[in-house]
């Protein structure tokens, strides 16, 4: 199934895009998505420090994804 990925903060630079359409297996969890992303983008190795939002709500690792979900990858930022 397809999901939409949004990237914020440093992840935009790490991945080179601010959004992309992305294919994941049915019933993937957030945790499975993270593993798949790290495997594809080595630069996202700190993804466990990032917040993941599904359809604008903070999502925990065990949450399952649905077709057309919008998944935001939100790293902490520290500038001021």
């Amino acid at each position, binding site marked *: 199934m397809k999901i939409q990925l949004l990237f914020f903060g440093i992840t935009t630079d790490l991945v080179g895009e601010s959004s992309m359409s992305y294919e994941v297996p049915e019933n993937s969890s957030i945790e499975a998505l993270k593993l798949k992303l790290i495997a594809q983008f080595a630069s996202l190795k700190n993804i466990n420090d990032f917040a993941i939002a599904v359809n604008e709500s*903070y999502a925990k690792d065990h949450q399952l994804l649905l077709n057309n979900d919008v998944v935001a990858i939100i790293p902490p930022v520290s500038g001021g």
Partner: protein
Amino acid sequence: MNISKSEYFKRQTTLSEIGEEGQQLLQKANILVIGCGGLGSPVAIYLAASGVGNIHLVDFDTISISNLHRQVFYNTATVEKSKAAVLASEIAKKTPFTNVTFSEEAVSKTNILELVSKFDVVVDGTDNLQIKYLINDACVLTKKPLVYGSLYKFDGYVATFNVFESKAYSCNLRDAFPKIATDIPNCGEAGTMNPIVGLIALLQVNEVIKLITKTGKLLTNQLLIYNALENSQFKMKLKKNESIAIEEIFKNSTYGALNCATQKPILLISKGDFKLKLNDTATEIISVINNINTPIPFEVHQKKPFHSFDIENFNPDFTKNYVIVCNKGITSYNITQQLKDKFPALNVLSLAEGIENY
């Protein structure tokens, strides 16, 4: 000139959402602004201009040239001066109805709880991830609302944490990012353009005003992200993570104590500048590395291990320019600061980031 208060705030009190009552609430408010850089400096100025009655500024840092493109309340004449002091005097010049005080002491685990407990609202204008967690945790422990802001390049984050709303306190930074991430650069800033810095600061000002005047909808239980390149706004809804025990965390965390973010630039020498002065006869290099056998990539004139360095009996040569070096630039900074405190006229600098970054 006699400045009439009712004339000054006429455009605010005419709003039914604010009125004289809202203006009074602002006048009585006590706001703490931690960090007087890109975020904190406009926050403090705009809050004072809105009529906030009491503002306390905290920043240990001095103004540097590379701050000026985004810290627009400073100017070339104030470079190397204390940010908190300069900002306080700017506010005093502009706004007759605000009582402004300041401190140049860095916030730390030792002083933070007492500090934040004195105020109605805390604004985070710092640029250091560890300190942001220190402030967050202290606000949770002292039950103070915290208006958070932070930046990376063209993205800015804003939220209002820890507001008492119908029986419980709203979410805080750890509900979005439970642990302090280790790979977020603290000391070297990524670049940014001034509009997003100003935008985030003004969204923080807006939160404080909404909070104090009880107007509008606060950014509680969410994290707002604005991207300046695409003018897109994203709000992530947050939920309280009940597994996080902040009292425990506060007790056990060091919040990266002694890290480089609390070092004053005027006490530092970069490796580039240092290399230029290596062969200068006035340069006197002291290594304070505890292990005197550690190889050092340049010649040092003295080895005085940190654990036995005796400041009291140190006999400085005021014709020399001392450079203190260590592995990471942390203990050398400590010694540099102690020497400078004891001998203000002494030329002494710490090699930034130590020999590991040489």
